[in-house]
């Protein structure tokens, strides 16, 4: 478990940053916010590139002053910036050696170059030069190189914003695996909900340089502040399920969500036995009575905990707690968006049991697919 305390305050241009958070995890924390919310500034200050900000950084009881006394190359962070850069005059192999040669700490046994080459499938690229690599390949090399710095904490600043969905999903899987396998905590900056719902263990929401809320994925994605930030139409929930089986022929996957079955399209990566799927609130059909199950693949049961009826629109938001399973103690939350007209017609209310119908077609496949 790594403990990192960060407090950064000060003006960045005409913008006031006031960020404070205690990271207490060996998992992946996602820093989420819109463009210009201060995410990248936080990463830059942590890695030592913005010295004029007032900052208190304590990593595992070691204090790092944000001054020139602690220049970037002496900080215990491995940073990867937007559009990662490889050194063009070095081969892939030489690029990977760059941080290894400069690592003066004795703690070099954490990860070997060979291991990373294996995990990130870089074997065939070693003798090639950056100008002959694709965007995804470059990113894999840059990621391996950053990890080989053997730092205590990885800071990744929207490294995948330019990649296509498939490459991105694959790399996110790598990240997850590396995090789990080698216990390196990661702070990942993103403004993509797909990325978040796939990799985050914890989310910090920031807006105009201030932390709004932080917590687990389901807590944040279902929170009002998050929904407000991304707009109601895109609002969604993330369900976590245990993989039961995949159907090769139909290309479908069966998940156990709180003891209930959820069938999703596609097949997730081999690594995952826990799969996250994102379901948009507007894609959910709610009914007080059981209807013909053949209309969709999925029928879930839950209890309505809250109903928000919007005054000036036609819509209502329902917060539904999935019925508890006997095995799992925590129950997951699902948000549904229906018209107030239909809400009244169905005569449903808080604390009432409902059936939820979700078509597998509407389940966000990008959120987990390999």
């Amino acid at each position, binding site marked *: 478990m790594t403990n990192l305390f960060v407090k950064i305050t000060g003006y960045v241009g005409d913008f006031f940053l006031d960020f404070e958070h205690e990271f207490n995890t060996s998992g992946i924390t996602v820093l989420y916010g819109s463009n210009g919310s201060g995410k990248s500034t936080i990463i830059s200050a942590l890695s030592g590139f913005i010295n004029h900000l007032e900052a208190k950084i304590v990593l595992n009881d070691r204090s790092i002053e944000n001054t020139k006394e602690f220049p970037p190359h002496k900080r215990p962070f491995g940073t990867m*910036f937007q559009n990662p850069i490889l*050194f063009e005059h070095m081969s892939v192999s030489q690029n990977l050696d760059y941080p290894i040669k400069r690592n003066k700490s004795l703690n070099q046994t954490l990860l070997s170059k060979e291991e990373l080459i294996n995990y990130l499938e870089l074997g065939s690229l070693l003798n090639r030069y950056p100008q002959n690599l694709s965007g995804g390949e470059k990113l894999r090399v840059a990621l391996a190189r950053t990890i080989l710095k053997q730092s205590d904490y990885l800071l990744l600043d929207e490294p995948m914003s330019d990649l296509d969905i498939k490459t991105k999903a694959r790399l996110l899987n790598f990240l997850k695996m590396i995090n789990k396998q080698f216990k390196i905590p990661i702070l990942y900056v993103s403004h993509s909900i797909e990325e978040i719902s796939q990799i985050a263990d914890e989310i910090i929401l920031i807006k105009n340089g201030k932390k709004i809320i932080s917590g687990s994925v389901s807590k944040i994605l279902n929170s009002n502040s998050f929904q407000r930030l991304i707009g109601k139409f895109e609002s969604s929930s993330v369900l976590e399920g245990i993989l039961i089986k995949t159907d090769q022929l139909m290309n479908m996957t069966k998940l156990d969500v709180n003891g209930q079955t959820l069938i999703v399209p596609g097949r997730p990566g081999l690594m995952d036995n826990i799969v996250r799927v994102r379901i948009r609130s507007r894609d959910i059909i709610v009914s007080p009575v059981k209807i013909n199950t053949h209309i969709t693949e999925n029928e879930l049961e839950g209890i309505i905990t809250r109903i928000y009826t919007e005054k000036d629109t036609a819509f209502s938001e329902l917060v539904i707690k999935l019925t508890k399973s006997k095995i799992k103690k925590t129950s997951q939350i699902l948000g549904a968006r229906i018209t107030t007209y239909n809400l009244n017609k169905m005569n449903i209310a808080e604390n009432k049991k409902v059936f939820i119908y979700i078509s597998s077609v509407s389940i966000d496949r990008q959120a987990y697919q390999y």
Partner: protein
Amino acid sequence: MDTFNFSSSDFNAVFITLKLALTTCFFLALIGTPLSYFLAFKSKRAKPFLESIVTLPLVLPPTVIGFYLIVFFSPDTALGKFFILLTGEQLIFSFYGLVLASIIYSLPFWVQPLQSALEKIGNDTLKTSESLGASKFDTFINVIVPLSKKGFLTSFIISFAHTMGEFGIVLMVGGGIHGKTKVIAISIYDHVEQLSFEKAHFLAGGMLILSFIILLTLFYSNKRSIVRVK
């Protein structure tokens, strides 16, 4: 030697010219390189101001620079006095006076190609290197220099050629003293004044061929590196 139209005086001029160009490039590497680095990566507000100063010798008539240098190099100024104290010689009309003048008027020829090569590398490359554990100096030696080799080569060749070819300032500051400050350009001028065209031909032709070879080397190496990148 005279059968080749090449007197010992001409030989001396060639030697002094080459020595001047090399010494100047040596000092330009020491002064011009950090300046280029500063302009490319560090300066923000001061940049236009500094760039204007560095570029000034490019637009000023050589006689204007020559005039001010004579004023500053005179034995009455602090600089002039200091040089006499150091060497027992006057700075003006000395070889080192010539070097100092050449550094000043060749500065833009060193700084501009190198600066644009460094700017192409960009700040993100520096940040990447530093975040991977390399100090600024380490980054300069192992990332910046190899990535801007072409810029260094261009700066060297252009500065060398330009120092070799300068006439006005060299005449004003150096005085064209035989064996001391008389460079090829001045020798040619003297030969022409004395109407010994054959000797002038020899030196002028030599300069022409040498300059052409220098430029050819430059453009050839530029072309080659572009092909390699592809």
